[in-house]
């Protein structure tokens, strides 16, 4: 045995342990091993002084479940811990997390630089809805790193993107775009729904705010809507005068300056104190609990999602009915190397592929698979498929489809954690039907 002194190592809990335990202490909750569902709207004050203290943010605690709830609070702390963030705020859906983030950051007259490859709902928010509030956006293709820099204006308050765009699987160069944002004194916001902190922790690559639709892989079981915004805690709001609502006394809270008072958690404190109070997209305690159940097995599920996805990529790449396959694990994917760096634990379970025979073949495939579910969601434990050209985007002509990064032959696949042979067998049924679309019945 060596008599060398043992090296000092921090023993803070690691990812898999935090997934199960972070944010919760049983001994403060009647010893309940599971996180209790606090199904309540409001909380007793000890006395008048206590009530005033809570309203003035003099002490921590709960007032009303629109603002905070103990079950939801466990979820918030858990996700913050997994992301390596300082604080988090859970919301009723992913969309409300994005909206609340923007409304906490921006005022009328502000501008954002936004990746053009985003979930469709997010595109609508940035393109059509935010301008109604006086907030304008410039869209930049995710691979056009320089384009992000060029699009920054005097009134730009942040950059927003999804790490891996959907459905084209284009990856934005997060470390470089973070640097561009920071050089301009503005934060980078990243929607990391498709990665979960198991695959990528955007704070480690320079992001300042991370957003999730928890509805997807984090909850994982296709049961509950939820969203969250997480704060990295590094961004200095006081470095310039771009963020007066963070740095100047705020009338809504007795002249409080969030940045001075709460530093690395200022953004979340403001999003809750102002955004939750005034917009109110709170998460129900039952749904928070459902999401917590999902997070308990996050790394176990993500491993299987990713290994099944890689198997499917191999299978599809060799298949006679498949024209092309897009997934960052494919060696000739243009972002293959960047994906290795940013997603070392796996490249995610979203695959897009082209089916030979175009739109009709796509329709036949979708109508005939039995195990894969045809629906408008991603990140379920079950395998999901959709043919955008005949479903979600059926009104679009060829040119518009192309602009949206879609094509008539494209099938979007969210690989589940079923036995891989069963998924492949199911796809064989779909492909057989696709080869003779008119001979196979839809019934």
């Amino acid at each position: 045995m060596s008599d060398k002194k043992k090296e000092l190592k921090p023993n803070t809990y690691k990812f898999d342990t935090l997934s199960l335990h972070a944010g919760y202490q049983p001994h403060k909750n009647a010893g309940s091993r599971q996180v209790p569902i606090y199904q309540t709207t409001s909380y007793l004050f000890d006395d008048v002084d206590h009530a005033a203290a809570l309203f003035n943010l003099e002490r921590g605690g709960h007032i009303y479940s629109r603002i905070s709830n103990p079950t939801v609070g466990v979820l918030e702390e858990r996700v913050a811990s997994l992301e390596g963030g300082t604080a988090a705020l859970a919301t009723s859906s992913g969309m409300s997390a994005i909206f609340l983030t923007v409304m906490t950051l921006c005022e009328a007259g502000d501008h954002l630089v936004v990746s053009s490859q985003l979930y469709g709902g997010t595109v609508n928010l940035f393109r059509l809805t935010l301008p109604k509030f006086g907030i304008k956006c410039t869209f930049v293709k995710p691979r056009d790193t320089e384009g992000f820099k060029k699009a920054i204006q005097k009134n730009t308050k942040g950059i927003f993107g999804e790490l891996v765009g959907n459905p084209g699987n284009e990856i934005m160069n997060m470390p470089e775009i973070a640097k561009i944002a920071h050089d301009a004194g503005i934060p980078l916001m990243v929607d990391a729904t498709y990665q979960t902190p198991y695959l990528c922790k955007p704070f480690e690559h320079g992001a300042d705010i991370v957003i999730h639709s928890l509805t997807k892989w984090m909850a994982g079981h296709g049961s509950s809507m939820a969203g969250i915004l997480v704060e990295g805690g590094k961004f200095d709001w006081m470095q310039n005068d771009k963020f007066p609502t963070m740095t100047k006394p705020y009338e809504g809270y007795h002249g409080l300056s969030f940045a001075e008072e709460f530093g690395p958690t200022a953004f979340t404190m403001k999003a809750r104190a102002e955004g939750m109070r005034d917009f109110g997209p709170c998460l129900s305690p039952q749904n928070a609990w459902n999401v917590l159940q999902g997070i308990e097995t996050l790394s176990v599920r993500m491993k299987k999602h990713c290994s099944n996805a890689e198997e499917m990529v191999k299978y599809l790449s060799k298949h006679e009915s498949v024209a092309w396959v897009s997934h960052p694990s494919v060696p000739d994917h243009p972002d293959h190397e960047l994906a290795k760096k940013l997603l070392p634990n796996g490249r995610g379970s979203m695959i897009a592929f082209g089916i030979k025979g175009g739109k009709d073949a796509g329709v036949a495939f979708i109508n005939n698979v039995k195990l894969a579910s045809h629906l408008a969601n991603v990140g379920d434990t079950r395998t999901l498929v959709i043919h955008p050209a005949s479903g979600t985007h059926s009104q679009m002509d060829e040119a518009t489809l192309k602009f949206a990064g879609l094509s008539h032959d494209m099938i979007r696949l969210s690989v589940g954690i079923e036995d891989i042979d069963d998924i492949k067998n199911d796809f064989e049924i779909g492909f057989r039907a696709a080869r003779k679309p008119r001979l196979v019945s839809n019934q």
Partner: protein
Amino acid sequence: MKFKVNGHEVFASTGGRPFDKKKPLIIFVHGSGLTHMTWVLQTRYFAFHGYNSLAVDLPGHGLSSGASLKSIEEMADWVSDVIDAVGHKEASLVGHSQGCLVTVECTSRYPNKIKTLSLMGGAGAIPMNPELLSLAENNDPKAVDLMMDWAHGPAGHFGGHPVPGLYHINTGTMLAKSRTIQNTLGVDFRACDNYKNGFEAAKTIKCPTLSILATDDKMCPVKEGKKLASLIDGSQVDIIDNCGHMMLLEEADRVLTVLKKFITTNYPPLSS
């Protein structure tokens, strides 16, 4: 608010209320490598209840300019200068960890100025683990990670922050990494390690004193805290179960309740 001490700009949080010279002054002094932010769950209460509550950033820390002070004695003099700089004649002091060494030394040096002394996770001496000290002096972020590990009790490692949505281990880490580690934590750890006058200083203290200690505090164990308290005449001691060194956050409410009773009794607020 910002003001100058010895030519350098100092930042102090006023707990969200404007500074008002008529109100009695409480100064909160943070621990090694940290900032005024560690006090957020205590300062705001006093600010809203008849006090000037000043959570300072030591020089070179948080939002204060200048270089970090190299000894506990210099920091003690600096705290006294802060009282003068904001136009007061006296103050109540509250310290955490290294802040306890500073406030004990300050109270001993300026007995007429200091009206009450509250020590959170304090000890008469804080000798540093040599490896931790060397990591901090070499700007290694591992020093912060180790400090966050040791500073939180077993319960605190799970989280369960009193403010919904905050994860305190990561928040503490961010605070301690917000400036260059060797210039903050490194200098502070060395100052703690060098300071030998704590027990002697304690013997001279005559003002009402409170010590809040925690059973799972690895950095300033209960035994050490009690030893210090025993040297201060009539010192009050409160011990918190299931809690580590970061009691201001881990058991923020309990700390506030005890502190509130002690300070309002011994150093009454300006009644409105």
